């Protein structure tokens, strides 16, 4: 028996959806209303079962041809993707919690006219503008079954960008004027409000924040390279060698040393390669080994609920 696929239709789909909702509501109710001992048992049990699934899915070797893990005709690899989808649905719900948190905090700031309340007004304006124009533009993608036909040449509902009544057709069929949903024509960039907000405002502000990093690197490097200890001196000398070894000027400084002679290792680019390849890389790998093993131990502790006292008090 192959694990049932997700391609359900009609009554099967609705039964599966209601069943999933029922199970989820049941677990939530159990966690919410049960006493602490039961709550803990439910959480520990769910964590163990979820971990066990991925443990088996990773450790049981897959089939050579399909490269999928199948145990007793149960396809664990396909089931893993179904569980992944379920996790995404849960994450979608928690996004609402995040939005609630933002609205609550900024709403309070405006209501009490705390310092910087105008920034919170800017938050609401930006938030609403993005939500309204994104939804107005893209709602067809989600809800209108005919939408693919509007943009597919040859279909009866196709909106021809070159047509004489193109604008009115768009307004009629998409319930959105061109300044809200600019149909892509001749590979030209869209010019609707959402695109303007995203490409013209958000992207640039994002790039501005990233560019700040360049200045901060300079100030952080200045503090790190101030020679106040022996370690700082070693760091400074190494940094100068590596920096010079990366640029043509540094290579020019030592290019009088023969490239194939006995002393070729003293050329700056050679020293640079030695520092990066023989010192820096092994150290990074060593740290990586430690982190990998630490992550493995941590994952085991979370899976087996051994992180006592770290998240919730003992017995709570």
């Amino acid at each position, binding site marked *: 028996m192959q694990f049932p696929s997700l391609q359900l239709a009609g009554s099967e789909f609705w039964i599966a959806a209601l069943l999933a909702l029922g199970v989820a509501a049941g677990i939530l109710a159990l966690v919410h209303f049960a006493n602490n001992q039961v709550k803990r048992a439910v959480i520990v049990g769910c964590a163990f079962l979820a971990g066990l699934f991925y443990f088996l899915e990773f*450790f049981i070797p897959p089939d050579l041809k399909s490269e999928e893990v199948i145990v007793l005709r149960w396809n664990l690899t396909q089931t893993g993707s179904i569980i992944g989808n379920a996790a995404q649905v849960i994450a979608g719900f928690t996004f609402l919690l995040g939005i609630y*948190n933002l609205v609550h905090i900024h709403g309070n700031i405006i209501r009490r006219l705390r310092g910087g309340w105008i920034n919170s007004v800017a938050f609401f304006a930006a938030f609403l503008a993005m939500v309204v124009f994104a939804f107005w533009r893209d709602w067809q993608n989600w809800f209108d079954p005919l939408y693919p036909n509007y943009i597919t040449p040859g279909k009866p509902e196709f909106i021809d960008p070159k047509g004489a009544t193109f604008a009115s057709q768009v307004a009629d069929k998409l319930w959105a004027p061109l300044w809200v949903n600019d149909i892509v024509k001749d590979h030209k960039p869209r010019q609707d409000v959402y695109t303007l907000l995203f490409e013209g405002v958000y992207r640039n502000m994002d790039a501005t924040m990233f560019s700040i990093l360049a200045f901060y690197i300079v*100030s952080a490097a200045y*503090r790190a390279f101030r020679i106040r200890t022996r370690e700082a001196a070693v760091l400074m000398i190494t940094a100068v060698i590596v920096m010079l070894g990366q640029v043509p000027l540094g290579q020019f400084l030592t290019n009088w040393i023969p490239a194939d002679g006995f002393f070729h290792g003293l050329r700056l680019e050679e020293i640079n390669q030695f520092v990066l390849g023989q010192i820096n890389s092994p150290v990074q790998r060593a740290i990586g080994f430690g*982190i990998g*093993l*630490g992550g*493995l131990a*941590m994952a085991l502790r979370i899976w087996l609920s051994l992180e006592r006292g*770290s998240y919730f008090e003992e017995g709570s």
Partner: protein
Amino acid sequence: MERSSAPQSFLASLPVRELSIAAGLVAAAAIVGLTVGAGYWKTTEYWQTFIFGRVLVFGLTALVLSHILHARRGGPVFVRRIPGLTAVDETVGRATEMGRPITFSLGLGGLDIITLQALAVALHVIRTAIRFGTRVIVTLADSTMYAVADEAVRESYAAAGRPESYNVEDVRFLSDRQFAYASSAMGLILRERVASNYMFGRFFAESLILAEAGNQVGAIQVAGTPIITQIPFFIAACDYTIIGDEYYAATAYLTREPVLSGSLVGQDRSKMFLIAVMGLGVLLATAAMLTGGLPVGEAPSGLGAVLDGFSRLFTEAK
């Protein structure tokens, strides 16, 4: 990382019973593997692609697990001092004296072990701060993690007997976009003029932006991340930086829970094993080079062939 509290020989310190269980687990897994992949056991490619890597990870898992189980029966384990984590009292004390809050950034990570470990450290700082009535503002970039953090922080206040002191605004979801989060967290640090700033979790380019913001307001800064590329930035800009596997040792260090410390022993033993493997590999490679077992452009022979087979044992599983 670890050292037994009482001096004893290495062999005597080995958890024989638990190691036997681990060996049994490995054997059972091998039987399952042979049964599942019975049709392919003669195919060398199958072993190399799917089996060897899994056996290595499974062996290491069993080793760590055996030490965790052993620690449940044993006594406390000494964990060396980790300066960044010892500084918790100092940072909270400073914030209390100055009457300013502490910020704790959980980074960009979602609900994974990196962010969960960061949350565990955050909760320890919060529990210490609750005793002194000092405010800790936790910031995050993942809404799933927000739900977990909010509940855990609320629980910490309740467990300390001060549920009314919990302020919903002290756990903040800022944005799920990298630089929107960075600018928001940076603004918070500058506006609140925080006394101490913690950065634990998954960080990328925003690490230095946050650390420099903390520097501008003169905050004591403690940072830790398993993202290797960001560690140098934290070292340059922070007062204390947690490096490498110290990050995952944090909860064991802070709670002194024997079971957690036991996993550190398992980690260290695993490291010893890997170092031994590397040493053996270096010796084999050197010997193969000296005996001409690794001719250029030709198949390895002699010791070179042994080295080739040895390295295949440690190929990452697909």
